[in-house]
């Protein structure tokens, strides 16, 4: 938690506690209607490719609501709460993979180093090329660097990575997706929970302890109070209503499944199960004041309503899963942790500056320094929506000013030149040194739904224009740039009888197409200084991309047996997922769900990795330019397009491509009461 926001969070917490006390303590006699229900669930997931157990989570969830008899100003008053606690035994049962014993020592086969680095390391122009390594392993627990093959840059104290970054408890970023067969850069990341190994843990952002991971809801944000809000309505004689909902809650905009075009008010916890859980379970409820003016039938509208929201709980980003977790969407958590470890402790990078080489970078010359979570005053979200029905068509217009829940890697922070022993702490254009920031965004959007009789189908449409979003961009000195973005979804639901499969019950066929367009996209074949590049350089995200989903769902045994197949495909990434499942409602209380989650397609994607940039002239000037005595070597220039899977090819591969080896078998048993 950001210390600056502690007092505000405390106020929010006090309000939640007061609501909880009211919910639990006020005598039932005053209540008109009290409901208590809940469930206990165990979800056990098993992953192929030698990983084994990825989830063994047991959850207890309670839902309470209490409504009061209307009196005075208000016509309706109620308090509603959802409380959730869980224990994920995967960190104990499969601790070799995800817990305190996870990770290993990692090795980089470095065949030898060119004379340039020998000279650089020794300062002696007559230094011969380094010989091939006999025991090339990462980080500073091995013999002197010349014998190991890792190149010690002059900025590395003592010539190699120190004992603060031991070669243990490590994994290689992206090794779960590819085998580095394209010669791209390789980074190691610490895999163990932050209470076991604090390397690479980013304060206030990705720093979960073993217990934070085991007991996800029992943390400093009191996430076991999943939702707790007060509902109140003032009714007017003309039928209009003024409604208030205040407290920790989910506010859902939009009309589509899986995609979040307008549904961006609450951040999302992708660490539960990537994008595959119901959003209802993975939205992170926030303290929000939600005010609605419900005008009902007015003028030409069958229904017209106005909504204003103000998020008063301190900012929370999406939970992407930290390095070493079973579910880290896009592998971003692993990458961030590796980069923060590099910043804090220095690190060895393989296939850098070219394939077959390994370089020891000193601390503060490469990596991610910190996450700058905005203070309350800088991160308040507020929005407005007009929503209604006219001529049978449901519609909404939405405006939201909010803080991005996705991180932006902003380069150009003050850093050191690894090729000099000095501590410069200055801006180096094109250097791979970042802070994680969360920019302010403005979203303007709309949605509609309607039924088309001739097609017997219901249509759902959403579109949103967002300004202020930031994307990696190797053409820019700070390695990012802004782009306005248009996103849209069209969904079609068609219940369809397929008599030979079931003559009494229609199957739901639900197709969605999602589009994303970066309006200020930059991608080219010359670098920022006009030098032709080896591959495309600029923004890794696609200018135009499309993802489609298709759901085929049936029901048997009076809806007690529900088989379905969910598929999704990312066209540009060339990867997708198919997930058949069967949901069996054994009784009113017991429910068993079995599912398989299979990915297919191209998997990892390649993109410019910025090795070809010249952030520290003249040391990082491309050898051909240096050999030719190019004047370009004297000044920073942007990437010349050496490319690999890592580190940012992941943004092209997308969640399906990066999960290509995350095929899983899943079993969930739930008891409701």
């Amino acid at each position, binding site marked *: 938690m950001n210390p600056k926001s502690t007092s505000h969070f405390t106020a929010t917490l006090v309000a939640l506690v007061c609501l909880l006390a009211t919910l639990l303590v006020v005598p039932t006699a005053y209540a008109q209607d009290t409901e208590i*229900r809940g469930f206990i669930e165990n979800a056990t997931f098993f992953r192929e490719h030698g990983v084994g157990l990825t989830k063994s989570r047991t959850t207890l969830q309670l*839902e309470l609501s209490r409504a009061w008899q209307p009196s005075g100003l208000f016509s309706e008053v109620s308090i*509603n709460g959802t409380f959730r606690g869980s224990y994920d035994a995967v960190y104990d049962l499969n601790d070799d993979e995800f817990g305190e014993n996870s990770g290993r020592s990692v090795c980089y086969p470095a065949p030898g180093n060119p004379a340039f680095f020998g000279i650089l390391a020794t300062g002696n122009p007559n230094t011969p090329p380094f010989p091939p390594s006999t025991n090339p392993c990462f980080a500073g627990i091995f013999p002197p660097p010349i014998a190991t093959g890792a190149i010690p840059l002059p900025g590395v104290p003592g010539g190699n990575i120190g004992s603060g970054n031991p070669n243990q408890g490590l994994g290689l970023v992206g090794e779960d997706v590819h085998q580095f067969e394209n010669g791209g850069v390789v980074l190691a990341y610490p895999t163990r929970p932050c209470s076991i190994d604090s390397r690479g843990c980013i304060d206030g952002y990705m720093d979960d302890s073993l217990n934070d991971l085991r007991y996800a809801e029992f943390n400093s944000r009191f996430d076991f109070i999943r939702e707790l809000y007060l509902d109140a*309505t003032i009714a007017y004689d003309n*039928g209009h*209503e003024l409604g208030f909902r205040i407290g920790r809650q*989910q506010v*859902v905009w*939009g*009309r589509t*499944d899986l995609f979040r075009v307008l549904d961006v008010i609450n951040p999302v916890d992708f660490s539960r199960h990537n994008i595959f859980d*119901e*959003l*209802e379970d993975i*939205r992170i409820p926030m303290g929000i004041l939600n005010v*609605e003016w*419900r005008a*009902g*039938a*007015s*003028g*030409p*509208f*069958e*229904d017209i*309503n106005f909504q204003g929201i103000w998020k008063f709980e301190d900012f929370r980003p999406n939970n992407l899963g930290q390095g070493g977790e079973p579910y880290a969407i896009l592998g971003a958590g692993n990458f961030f942790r590796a980069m923060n470890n590099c910043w804090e402790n220095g690190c060895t990078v393989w296939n850098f500056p070219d394939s077959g080489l390994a370089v020891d970078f000193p601390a503060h010359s490469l990596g991610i320094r910190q996450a700058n979570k905005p203070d309350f005053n800088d991160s308040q979200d507020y929005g407005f929506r007009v*929503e*209604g*029905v*006219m*001529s*049978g068509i*449901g519609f909404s217009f939405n405006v939201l000013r909010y803080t991005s829940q996705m991180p932006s890697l902003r380069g150009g922070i003050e850093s050191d030149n690894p090729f000099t022993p000095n501590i410069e702490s200055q801006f180096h254009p094109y250097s791979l040194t970042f802070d994680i920031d969360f920019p302010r965004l403005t979203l303007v959007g709309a949605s509609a*739904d309607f*039924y088309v*009789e001739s097609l*017997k*189908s*219901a*249509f*759902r449409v959403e579109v949103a224009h967002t300004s202020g979003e930031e994307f990696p961009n190797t053409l820019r000195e700070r390695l990012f740039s802004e782009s306005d973005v248009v996103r849209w979804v069209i969904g079609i*639901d*068609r*219940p*369809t*009888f397929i008599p030979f499969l079931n*003559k*009494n*019950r*229609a199957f739901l066929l639900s197709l969605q197409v999602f589009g994303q367009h970066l309006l200020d996209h930059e991608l080219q074949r010359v670098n920022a200084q006009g030098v032709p590049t080896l591959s495309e350089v600029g923004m890794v995200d696609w200018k135009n991309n499309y993802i489609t989903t298709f759901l085929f769902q049936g*029901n048997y*045994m*009076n*809806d007690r047996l529900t088989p379905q197949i969910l598929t999704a495909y990312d066209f540009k990434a060339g990867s997708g997922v198919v997930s058949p499942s069967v949901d069996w409602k054994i*009784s*009113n*209380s017991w*429910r068993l769900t079995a599912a398989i989650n299979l990915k297919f397609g191209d998997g990892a994607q390649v993109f410019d990795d910025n090795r070809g940039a010249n952030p520290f002239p003249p040391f990082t000037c491309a050898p051909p330019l240096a050999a030719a005595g190019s004047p370009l070597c004297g000044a920073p220039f942007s990437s010349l397009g050496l490319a690999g899977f890592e580190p940012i090819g992941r943004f092209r591969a997308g969640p399906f491509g990066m999960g290509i080896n995350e095929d899983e078998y899943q079993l969930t048993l739930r008891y*409701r*009461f």
Partner: protein
Amino acid sequence: MKQGTLKILIICMVGLSQTVAADSFTDEDINQSFYPYNDWTPAADGYTPGVVIDQNNVDQFQSILDEALLRFVKDGWVSIRTAPTTDFPLTEDYVNATRQHAGEVSIADNGTLNNFVAGRAFPQEPQADDPLAGQKLVWNYQYGFNSGDSETIYPFWWTFRNVKTAKVERQLKFEWHFLNHNHRVTFDPKPAYVNNPGEIYRGIYGIVKEPFDLANTQILIHRYQDDTRRDNAWLYVGFQRRVRRLAAGQITDAFLGSDLMIEDFEGYNGRVTDYTWEYAGTRNLLMPFYYHNDMELADVPAQDADGYQFIDVEGQGNCFPKVTYQLRKSFTLVGKPKDPNHPIGKRVINLDAQTMTMASLVTYDRKGDMWKWFPIGKAHSDHHLAVNKGKGVALDDYAVVIDIQAEHCTTLQFKSQVTDDANQPKLFSVQNLRKSGR
């Protein structure tokens, strides 16, 4: 005469010829339609009220049992207790509305009504030689007084049962609300809500209370004044936290896994113009009309605030209502869907002549095999909850859909309340789904 004027005249004449003129009616028609039992009691050979009809004596009562019930009694699935025929008068408001407006009503060329305001559209006795008799009867049902102007059903339990084993497989607990925006006769505003830009005729709103996996699921259906216009329907899905537009045209789908289609609600819940309708005669049939408070009731729901108890279940699979049946005048109406892909071949509906409610319904599949039986037990509103006293509504009180082919049934147990307390238009809005959703 100018050519344009002639064209208009021809169009007007053709139009008039395609519209069936309104039928006149007499006081005798009104009395016969609304008070058939004032000076007449239905009778059948060998039938005496109070007799119990079972496997042993059913053959002599074949003519007063609908085709499905006859089969069930013959198979020993149920015995029928009988009681004397009693009057189930509808409210005088509805009768007066009929007197006031029925004379203006006619059937348009497209099968919809002209000039309908309120009350029973066609109070005249149906005639076998009237090709529109079936349509007139179904319009009488469509704009009948089945739930009054406004009704709440809560609690409302739907229980999925295995007919062979009587095993309860699943139980859904609902709260349902019905509101007529137009054609109102008892509750203000009459005859219609003025502020109705959507031209909605009827709103139906339901929310699932249990089981947990469906709790907070809400459904909203808007039926429009224009019967040719397709309903709009929305579902609030609790686990998605949002309102989802339904493909309202697919009303032949099993609703939430029950044995009912959406099209089955209240007997028939589709557009009149989706079917062809044929009047197939008048019969005296045993139908589940009774005084709720005089029945041997179930012990549920427990701890009801009004001390209300549901009609109990009995018979094969516990699918049948534990009530008395009475011999009543009924009109048999045969509806056949126009859509060749419709799963139903025909509906044989027995309309209670006095209340114009669908008291029993037998559906056949496209092969012509008997598929489902759907009787709706009707309780006299003066012998029910206090709130219903004097409301003049034949209350929905118990229903069952027995899927004969699948040997499965869904029983529906009602606590019906004819009231406008909660049933204001805002309850029947999409926004209310969001407001009530959790």
